[in-house]
């Protein structure tokens, strides 16, 4: 009997302790974990650390197969071309025995016929950012020869004729004198050349042999990009999500933070140092006061701090990349504005508005975050049209030729009475600067899907066209 009683007592004690433990888990720790994992899909005590090189990604790839055979790729799901290119560039930036020289126009022209891969970036990137991500010496001779980079080419005709070219669009710097390990990329280029690929032609070849325009555009595309169904990353109507976000920015009990609910549904949290606003459309804005410091901000340090800040404040969307770096000044303190964008289905997500939608924007002064703005759409499905083919960049230029030309005339205040029609035509064809593919957020009320578009840059303006029907989506935004 005694033993039976003892077992009962032991069981009772066990149940009491288990209950206490579970209640403590449920009411003290469990809600926090639940909220954060619901909101951001990650553990509270684990933050994935990102590095600058994660955010440098090309907008498109041009591949020269030799002669006039060239392909264009707007995304790379199968070959990992950029990561392989980065490995080669790392050895180049770290090398001490390089021959660096500026190419002549004849050399540039000649090199177009060689076997090569070209990485094109959406904006200029400081060369020393590349030095940093490749752990190279800041005094690298490459830094001295070119300040910014918007495209990198690797030429691989033969071992004796292997070199790399770095360009800002105006000057082309040839780097040779080292043994570049192109074998891995070469085999990928061979595979691509034997498959179905989209061919690229220069504007000169495609539109007018009498003009000089080396912009590559496709005549026919061999793929269809999908329409993407999306939802806002932040659901402002969900109070649990809202509080979870607020607690990331204010490291103390939210009971001590003033909360304002605006008539349009936006929520504001404010204390003496910080302001957080979550807009009804899912845009988040955060402002923080920064102490004055005469020391000028350092770009690399600021960029690292910006990346770390996002790491710990809601994290990064998949395929985020550094889009733009602007220098700013705030109350005589110098700083930087970093704009990051992200890709869906391999293509950059863009908005027709100039406001920073579909991006992450941070302003840092004295290397400290002063403001943080974020608007991200999350994909939850996609549909690829089966019964119609996507138009090429050439198709949309051809369909909208008259309209684009009229806008060029208007934007540049050209008096058509004082210029020959043929001369105007040549001028216009010469200023077709870029054609890129993107996923477009039309911001139409109630629209829950994004569609593929062509962005055609003409004389400093970006025009957006539906990639399936060729209709213009904007009147042209200054680049």
């Amino acid at each position, binding site marked *: 009997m005694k033993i039976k009683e003892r077992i009962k007592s032991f069981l009772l004690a066990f149940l009491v302790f288990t209950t206490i433990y579970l209640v403590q888990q449920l009411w003290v720790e469990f809600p926090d974990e639940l909220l954060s994992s619901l909101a951001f899909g990650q553990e509270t005590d684990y933050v994935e650390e990102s590095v600058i090189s994660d955010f440098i990604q090309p907008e498109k790839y041009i591949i020269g197969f030799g*002669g*006039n*055979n060239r392909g264009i790729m707007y995304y790379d799901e199968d070959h990992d071309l950029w990561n392989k290119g980065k490995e080669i560039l790392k050895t180049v930036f770290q090398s001490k025995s390089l021959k660096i020289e500026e190419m002549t126009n004849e050399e540039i022209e000649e090199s177009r016929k060689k076997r090569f891969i070209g990485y094109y970036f959406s904006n200029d990137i400081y060369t020393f950012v590349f030095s940093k991500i490749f752990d190279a010496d800041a005094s690298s001779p490459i830094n001295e020869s070119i300040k910014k980079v918007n495209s990198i080419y690797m030429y691989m005709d*033969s*071992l*004796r004729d292997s070199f790399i070219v770095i360009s800002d669009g105006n000057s082309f710097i040839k780097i040779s004198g080292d043994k570049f390990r192109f074998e891995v990329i*070469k085999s990928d280029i061979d595979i691509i050349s034997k498959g179905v690929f989209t*061919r690229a*032609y220069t504007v000169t*070849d*495609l*539109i*007018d*042999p009498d003009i000089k325009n080396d912009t590559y555009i496709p*005549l*026919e595309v061999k793929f269809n990009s999908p329409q993407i169904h999306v939802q806002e990353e932040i659901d402002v109507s969900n109070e649990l999500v809202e509080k979870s976000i607020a607690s990331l920015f204010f490291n103390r009990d939210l009971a001590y933070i003033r909360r304002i609910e605006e008539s349009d549904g936006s929520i504001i949290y404010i204390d003496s140092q910080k302001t957080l606003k979550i807009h009804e459309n899912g845009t988040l804005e955060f402002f923080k006061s920064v102490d004055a410091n005469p020391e000028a901000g350092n770009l690399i340090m600021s960029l690292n701090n910006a990346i770390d800040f996002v790491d710990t404040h809601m994290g990064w969307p998949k395929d985020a990349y550094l889009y733009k770096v602007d220098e700013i000044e705030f109350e005589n303190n110098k700083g930087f504005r970093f704009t990051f964008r992200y890709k869906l289905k391999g293509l950059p997500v863009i908005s027709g508005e100039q406001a920073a939608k579909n991006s992450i924007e941070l302003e840092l002064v004295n290397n400290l975050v002063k403001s943080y703005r974020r608007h991200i759409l999350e994909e939850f499905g996609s549909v690829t049209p089966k019964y119609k083919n996507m138009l090429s960049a*050439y198709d949309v*230029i*051809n369909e909208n*030729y*008259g309209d684009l*030309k009229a806008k060029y005339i208007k934007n540049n205040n050209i008096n058509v*009475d*004082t*210029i*020959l*029609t*043929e001369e105007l*035509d040549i001028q216009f064809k010469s200023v077709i600067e870029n054609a890129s593919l993107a996923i477009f957020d039309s911001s139409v009320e109630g629209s829950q899907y994004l569609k593929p578009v062509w962005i055609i840059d003409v004389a400093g303006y970006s025009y957006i066209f539906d990639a399936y029907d060729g209709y213009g989506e904007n009147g042209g935004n200054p680049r």
Partner: protein
Amino acid sequence: MVRGGIIMAKKFLTMVLVLVAVGITSTIAYAGVGDTVPKQVVKVESQKVEKEVQINVNSENGIQTEGDVVLITIRGKKGVSVTFEVYLNTNVVIQEDVKTIESLVEAAKAEDYSLLLSEVVELEDSGIYPKELKLKKGLYKIVAIKQDGTNSFREVRYVLCKGIDDAARTLDNAKNAIISPVIETIKKLINNK
């Protein structure tokens, strides 16, 4: 005598200076008048020399390799209707080291060309009609015809496709045959040539 000579020289110098001054002034005045010529006149002149229809092929010397894709562009004025035809002649004897196609074009018989493609295209705002063409071995004749009432404007271009490279063919055959270290050696040789 000497004094008289000096006076004569002075008179002569004055005359030269006057002539030079008049000459320069009249040249400047003439150039100024030239600038006021209406641009419309120049426009008409330049239109007169423009070709009715043009064919461009992005091939340096008109000689390509089998499997290559060439870009053909037809150029003309906006709204013009052009008949675009492509013919292929496979009855040509092509030397491996052929450098020009003129002799082959001259030797080819008209009946050896067979029609591959025929389209009537209307040139849009850009005045361009581009077309990609994947080549097989033979001599291509590309024709663009613009019919304008009773007048017909015709432009012809030739492209020779001389067949796949021996080296590339060897490599392809090797790849599809038995896997052996020899393939890698051939590959390296070709890559390093």
